[in-house]
C-alpha cells in the first residue's frame, strides 16, 4: 500500500513536469504555428547549463538556475528564424521536420561536446533526495514536493499571463486567427518572437525541475522526453492547453505505476502506446484539437 502511494506521489511529480513541457510546446504550436520537437532538447541543454555553472561556481544554485533559464530562453528564440519561412507559409508539418533536424544537431552537440556525452549528475542537495518528509512509513522527498508545486506555480503563472494580461489576449487572438489579430493591430511578428521566448523561459524552469527529479542528464534524455511530449500532445489533442495538462499528469502517473508493477522497460512503451491508441481510435485526441 505504501509502495502504491509512493508511486502515486512520484507519478504526480513526474506528471507535473510533463504537463509543464506540454504547455510550452502547445504555446509554440498555437501562437508561432510550429511543432517544436526540439523543445525537449532545449530543456536538456538548460540542464547541462545548470550543471556547468554549478561545476564552475562550486555547487551554487543561485547562479545555476537563472543561467539555465536564460540559456533556454535564448536558444529557443534563436530557433525562430529557422522556422520563420515555414511558419509564414503555414506549413506546420514542415516545421515538424525542421524541429527534428534541430533536435539532431542539439543531440550531437550534447553527445560530442558536452562532457563528451557522459551522463552528468546533479548533487543530491539539488534533488532533495536526502531530505525527505515522512508520513508514517511513506517518504516523500522535498524535491518531489518542490517539483510538483513548482510546476503548478509555473503553469498557473503562465495561465495568468494568458488570461489576465493584454499580451495574453494578443497571444490567444493569434492562436484563434492570425489574420484578425493582425488586423486589430496586434504586432504579430513580435508576438510570435515573444512566444519563443516565453516557451524557452518555461523550458528553463522545467530544466531545473527535471534535474531535481531525475538527478542526472544525458544526450538521449532529450529524445526520450521529446517523444513523450509529442505523444501527450497528440493524445490530449493538438493545441489543447487544458487537455495537455491533464494528459501530462496521466502519463506521469501511468509511467510511475507501471514502473512499480510491470517488469523491465514497459513504462517507456506507454508513450508509444498513447500514440497508437490516439491514431487508431481518436485522432483528434481525448479532448479535441484546438488548432
Amino acid at each position, binding site marked *: 500500500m505504501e509502495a502504491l502511494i509512493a508511486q502515486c506521489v512520484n507519478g504526480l511529480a513526474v506528471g507535473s513536469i510533463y504537463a509543464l513541457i506540454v504547455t510550452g510546446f502547445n504555446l509554440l504550436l498555437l501562437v508561432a504555428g510550429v511543432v517544436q520537437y526540439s523543445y525537449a532538447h532545449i530543456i536538456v541543454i538548460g540542464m547541462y547549463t545548470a550543471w556547468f555553472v554549478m561545476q564552475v561556481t562550486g555547487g551554487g544554485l543561485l547562479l545555476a538556475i537563472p543561467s539555465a533559464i536564460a540559456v533556454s530562453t535564448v536558444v529557443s528564440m534563436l530557433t525562430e528564424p529557422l522556422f520563420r519561412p515555414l511558419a509564414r507559409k503555414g506549413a506546420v508539418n514542415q516545421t515538424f521536420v525542421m524541429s527534428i533536424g534541430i533536435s539532431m544537431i542539439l543531440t550531437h552537440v550534447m553527445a560530442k561536446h558536452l562532457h563528451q556525452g557522459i551522463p552528468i549528475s546533479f548533487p543530491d542537495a539539488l534533488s532533495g533526495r536526502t531530505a525527505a518528509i515522512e508520513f508514517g512509513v511513506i517518504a516523500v522527498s522535498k524535491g518531489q514536493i518542490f517539483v510538483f508545486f513548482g510546476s503548478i506555480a509555473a503553469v498557473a503563472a503562465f495561465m495568468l499571463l494568458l488570461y489576465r494580461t*493584454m499580451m495574453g*489576449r*494578443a497571444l490567444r*487572438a493569434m492562436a484563434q486567427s492570425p489574420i*484578425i489579430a*493582425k*488586423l486589430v*493591430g496586434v*504586432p*504579430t511578428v513580435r508576438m510570435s518572437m515573444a512566444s519563443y521566448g516565453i516557451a524557452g523561459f518555461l523550458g528553463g524552469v522545467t530544466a531545473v525541475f527535471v534535474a531535481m527529479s531525475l538527478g542526472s542528464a544525458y544526450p538521449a534524455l532529450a529524445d526520450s522526453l521529446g517523444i513523450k511530449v509529442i505523444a501527450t500532445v497528440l493524445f490530449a489533442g493538438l493545441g489543447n492547453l487544458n487537455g495537455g495538462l491533464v494528459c501530462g499528469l496521466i502519463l506521469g502517473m501511468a509511467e510511475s505505476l507501471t514502473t512499480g508493477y510491470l517488469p523491465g522497460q514497459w513504462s517507456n512503451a506507454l508513450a508509444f502506446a498513447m500514440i497508437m491508441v490516439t491514431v487508431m481510435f481518436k485522432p483528434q485526441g481525448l479532448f479535441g484539437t484546438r488548432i
Partner: protein
Amino acid sequence: MEGNRSPILSVSDLSVSYGLISAVRNISIDLYEGEFVTLIGANGAGKTTFLESVLGMHPAVRGRVFFQGKEITNWSTDRIVALGLTLCPEGRGILPAMSVLENLQLGAFHHRRHMPESLEKVFELFPILERRRHGRAGNLSGGEQQMLSIGRALMAGPKLLMLDEPSLGLAPIVVTEVFKIVTRLAELGHTILLAEQNAKKALQYASRGYVFETGRIAFEGSAGELMHNEDVVRVYMGARTNG
C-alpha cells in the same frame, strides 16, 4: 470640396496585386477630417483589397498612402493601427471564442491607457455589449457582432474608421440600425470610410462616394451626384440588393 485643409487620408495612384492578378489599380482617394465617404461597387470590385491595403495588410505594387500627412505606404499593420487608422472587416472579424469584453479589450492594444474611458463610451453607444460583456462573442447575433466590431475599432481611439460591408448578411431592419449608428459616429466627429455593395443605402447616408469597378475608380462625386448619375443608377441601384 474642403479645399484649404489637408486630407486626413490621401491615397495616390495605389496598385495592389495578388501575385500576377491585379486587384486594384491606380486608386487615388482623398478623405478629409469629419467626412463620411463611401466606396460602392459590386462584389469583387476591389473595395476590400483597397481598405486592407491602406491598413498595410497587402504590399503596394505602386502608389503611396498618406495618413495625417505622414507616409504610411507599406508600413506594418500594427504601426498603422497605432496611428489611429482602424478597420471593421467584412464579416465582422470578431473572435468568437473570446468574450465580448475581451474582444473590446483587444481593440485597445495600442490605446491601453485610455481603456476605461473607451470602454465606457463604447458601452454607452452599445448597451447590449455591456449587458453581454462576459458572454462568448460567437453567441451574439449578426447585428450585435457588427456593433462589437465597431466597438472594438473605437477602443483604438481611431482618427479614421473604415468599415467593410457592415450590412453584409444582416436583416434590413438591422442594416438601418447599423447605418444609424455609423451616422451617429459621424455626427460625433469621427471620419468614416465605408465600403458597401448596397449603393442605395450607402449614398443615403454618406456625403460623398467613389464607385469601384474591376479594381479601378469608375465614378466619383457627391452622394447627390452619384444618385442621379444614369450609369451608376442603372448598374448599382436597379435591382434589389441581396439581403
